[in-house]
């Protein structure tokens, strides 16, 4: 039965060897050999060390394309031309689905055609040696970024391949990323991943783990994201992970973002064991971007400015081409440099903003209540509690596509642009908190002269891509019309009839 307990060494080895048989490249992933490879890496390629010892926020982009040499070139470009401090390798969707066969086809196709026919780097297909080539060819630490519910084989191959940081977690890579994966099973799979990282850690190779904070990226109430980070952090710590980077995705309201980052840091310290080094990562806006690079630069600008105020350990940058598709390397590097300029210009300034403590207090209260409900749902066992709490809806994520989540929570912005909750579903939150949210949303409803409804949610989802923070009704919206997009009809269809 699923329990939040250390996987026995024997079981680890057994599962590992079974998994290594699932795809030919698994055979090369020898643990001892891997430890040796990691030990051969210089200090500036050791992810946990570099991140934990940095004075200022480090910048990291997202980037992954199918072919090895292209990926190396891309990463080098982001390092030299973008000034990235930490590098990523984003994995393709087929690999995330464990469809290595399809990924192989895609990779072959990419090699033949020269096109990027996969949306990421199929690391399992490339195998251990190719990964080591990649690690050797760049000058910064590299993280595996993906979205894989069952990332066990991916972890085996990439960690043996010299990657020192691994993104994801059982909740954050299930709930936003899949429909049918069972949450209980996903937790088991991630316990294996964390245990593997723990095994490296025991041998002195402190693999960094980074739960994916932004979740669905779309108006996620900070407390929900923070609770998930704490839970995944606890599960990872049990398996021996000692370097944890807790994540948070910008919501766009400066006070709320700074408060949330602080709450994340404080609750991380409070809940995680003392022998874990916890750092934080701030993701620039993860929701829908404006379909215009100039406006997108404005969104990135607010991200950089917020990062400078919130001072996370790491910032994941966006590119001005986010709306359109996987960015060119130039656009990706541009996003890094725009962010860097803003962060560096603001970092030396002392800017103290009012009202952060109050917001932090309400975020912490809510997040604590969610974490505690998981404890009680599982009679003290975090693994069991997480499954049970999602089942009951006591823990929930808005816009979650997963069958394992109720997705009954609906967020909307208040009159100040802070993300509040419009529909709570069965979320385990104290009544006083609900009252605060309700009052704020009522205030917005009054300002806008309309009632609280899904229309607000739909309008808010589009707001930033339409150039505003809050999805106010526009003059052109009819009384019974569809969701206003704030800018009026745009874009669209293209048909030749």
């Amino acid at each position, binding site marked *: 039965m699923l329990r939040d307990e250390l996987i026995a060494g024997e079981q680890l080895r057994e599962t590992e060897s079974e998994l290594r048989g699932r795809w030919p490249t698994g055979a090369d992933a020898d643990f001892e050999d891997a430890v040796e490879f990691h030990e051969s890496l210089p200090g500036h390629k050791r992810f946990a060390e570099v991140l934990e010892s940095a004075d200022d926020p480090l910048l990291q982009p997202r980037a992954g394309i199918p072919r090895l040499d292209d990926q190396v070139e891309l990463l080098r470009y982001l390092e030299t031309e973008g000034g990235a401090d930490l590098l990523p390798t984003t994995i393709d*969707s*087929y690999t*995330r*689905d464990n*469809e290595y066969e399809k990924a192989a086809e*895609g990779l072959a196709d990419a090699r033949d055609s020269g096109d*990027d*026919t*996969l*949306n990421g780097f199929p690391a399992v297909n490339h195998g251990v040696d190719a990964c080591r080539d990649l690690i050797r060819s760049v000058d910064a630490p590299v993280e595996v970024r993906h*979205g894989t519910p069952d990332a066990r084989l991916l972890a085996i191959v990439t960690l043996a391949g010299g990657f020192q940081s691994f993104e994801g977690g059982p909740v954050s890579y299930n709930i*936003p*990323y*899949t*429909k*049918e994966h069972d949450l209980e099973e996903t937790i088991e799979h991630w316990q294996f991943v964390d245990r593997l990282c723990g095994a490296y850690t025991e041998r002195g190779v402190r693999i960094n783990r980074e739960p994916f904070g932004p979740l*669905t990226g*779309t108006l996620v109430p900070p407390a929900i994201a923070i609770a998930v980070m704490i839970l995944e952090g606890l599960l990872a710590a049990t398996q021996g992970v000692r370097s944890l980077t807790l994540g948070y995705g910008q919501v766009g309201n400066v006070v709320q973002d700074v408060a949330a980052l602080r709450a994340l840091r404080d609750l991380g310290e409070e809940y995680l064991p003392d022998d874990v080094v916890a750092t934080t990562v701030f993701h620039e806006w993860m*929701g*829908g971007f404006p*379909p215009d690079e100039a406006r997108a630069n404005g969104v990135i600008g607010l991200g950089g400015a917020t990062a400078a105020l919130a001072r996370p350990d790491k910032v994941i940058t966006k590119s001005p*081409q986010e*709306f*359109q*598709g*996987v*960015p*060119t390397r130039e*656009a990706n590097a541009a996003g890094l440099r725009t962010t860097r300029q803003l962060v560096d210009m603001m970092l030396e300034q002392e800017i103290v903003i009012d009202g952060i403590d109050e917001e932090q207090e309400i975020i912490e209260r809510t997040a604590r209540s969610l974490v505690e409900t998981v404890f009680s749902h599982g009679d003290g066992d975090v693994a069991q509690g997480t499954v049970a709490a999602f089942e009951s809806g006591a823990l929930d994520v808005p*816009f*979650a*596509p997963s069958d394992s989540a109720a997705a009954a929570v609906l967020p909307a912005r208040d009159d100040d642009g802070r993300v509040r909750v419009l529909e709570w579903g069965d979320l385990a939150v104290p009544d006083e908190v609900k009252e605060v949210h309700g009052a704020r949303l009522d205030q917005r409803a009054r300002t806008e002269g309309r009632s609280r409804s*899904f229309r607000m949610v*739909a309008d808010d*989802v*589009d707001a930033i891509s339409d150039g505003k923070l809050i999805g106010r009704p526009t003059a052109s919206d*009819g009384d*019974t*019309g*569809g*969701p206003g*997009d704030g800018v009026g*009809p*745009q*874009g*669209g*269809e*293209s*048909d*030749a*009839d």
Partner: protein
Amino acid sequence: MARIGADTHMGQTVILGVIGSDAHVVGITILEQALTAAGFDVENLGVQTAKAEFVSAAAAEDAGAVLVSSLYGHARQDCQGLHEQLAEAGCDAITYIGGNLAVGQNDWAETEQTFRTLGFDRVFDAETDPEAVVASLERDLDMTATEPERASVNT
């Protein structure tokens, strides 16, 4: 655009879903809401929906339209053969596809052509306003009612 009463499209079932292993759910959530508000009967298959699921749902409901969403960049691969399967199942629904249809910064005209060739009646980019989808569907579904030969375009 003049709004058409909410009951006009009663009985016109629209199949909606995200194809392949794509999990981007926000777009279809918004679309479902807009189509429902406009009076369509929407069957939302959700994310990560296989081709076969689209086909059987369309056949089972005798759907007027099949709306395929794809954001993550693998739409072309995922839609291969969809129209052939729909035809085999005797389904003559109008088909739309929309979202972020290519990996990377591709030329839209080219992308559009790709999906027209695959058999889609209309191809929508990610800037699509939900109201525009409603308007197109209203047009196309009324049209199929009065001009049945329209369906032959798809078979």
